[in-house]
């Protein structure tokens, strides 16, 4: 899937937060969303590169992909299942 074409319904900025807060906030954000909606997460913690993709495929959700950006952040996309 081309990340540039994903329609995002909600954005969560976890910049500056470290383990486990990015994952905890991702879980909370997904709970507040409806099935089929897409969550975009902005993160700076290198641990999230392992945690978020793993969690993104749990509970019927779908991890759509991730992308590093120039300012050192990483973008993650999860579709709520």
């Amino acid at each position: 899937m081309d990340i540039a074409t994903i329609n995002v319904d909600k954005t969560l900025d976890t910049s500056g937060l470290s383990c486990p807060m990015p994952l905890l906030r991702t879980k909370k954000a997904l709970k507040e969303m409806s099935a089929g909606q897409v969550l975009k997460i902005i993160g700076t913690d290198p641990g999230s590169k392992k945690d978020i993709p793993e969690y993104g495929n749990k509970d019927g959700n779908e991890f759509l992909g991730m992308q590093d950006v120039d300012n050192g952040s990483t973008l993650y996309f999860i579709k709520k299942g």
Partner: protein
Amino acid sequence: MITFWSSIREEFRRTYIKLFHDSWPAWLAGIFLAILALMIFLWDNMWGITGGFRNWGDNVFYMLGIYSEQPEKPWLSNMSVSNLGLLLGAFGVALMAGQFKIRTSSWYEHLKGLVGGALMGIGAAFAAGCNIGGFYNAIGMFSMGGYAMMIGLGIGAYIGLRILIWEMMNIPQQSLPQMHSTEMPGKPFINWSRIAPYAGGLVLLSIPAAFYLYAVSDRVVLGGLLFFGALIGITMQRARLCFARAFREPFMTGNADMVRVIALSLIIYGMGSAVIKFNWLQPEMAGVYHPFWFGSLLGGIIFGIGMLLAGGCGTGSLWRAGEGHVKLIIAVVSFALFNSLGFAALERFGIREKLGSGVFMPDVFGWPFALMLYGLVALGWALWAIWNEKTEKFVIF
């Protein structure tokens, strides 16, 4: 001939990517950790982290004139040297992987690092060790205190997670401080991302060089501790091996991966340690001093809350500090200072003797039953976590 050299170069490139770019599988790191801890046990004594942190804190308070007795210098204290090795190994390999970066956070996150580090320091003073000395190594050394701390860490992680959930629901997320760019427009003068892997290589090469210097100064044991500590730092950073995760995830997402890894690592460590102790290659009571049961349990609870707030345990804070996380650097400093103070307070007020004493499992159960029990607890922990992963019975959020 050209094909020969190009194939060598290709193989070198592939190995480099596997070692320094791709993450290592956590299970492999768990096996490496057990082997390296056993090597340290054979080389010198039980591996530990807290004693090194305390040495740093003791030195700070001595320099400030608060302590009258001069502690061992950090580069001559065994646990301090293995900690420095761990930090250097993680720093060097993070540079090579392009993962080193000074990562600041909001003042609030830094405060959590400070408080979390303080709680870890105090908890480790009660339990006579952190997640390594008080739990992982204690269990590996057949010290009953390790099991009491394991229960304490579980309770502490549960309470710590409840605190983080409350915080998330009630305290607005603090934004990052606005960084004013000092970069000049145009092409940067130095391209740090290209230099970092070479700098990392130099840092890693300095470790065997330091080993040699220690050896020629008649301190070969310290050189070996620095070397093994560095290998542990490299292993933990590359696989992001995290003890805090093993205690937290069953309550947070249900993920059982890290519990599997630590349980596997403990089984290997225990087998090796049993061989060493049974054959008297090291004394049976080596590493058996944990205050069973009260000190270990209470220390585990306090430590568990602290590691959740800080976002890293004894080792996790150290290798993440090596990656440049300011919050974890603060946590390490706070851990060192509060452990030194906590340890001194327990001694001064005569509390230490009331917390419990070291109990050697085979003394209580005999070797055959102790070994069986050892394996059953590790296996039972992993099976519980796997069952919980599927049912989410213990997931609280």
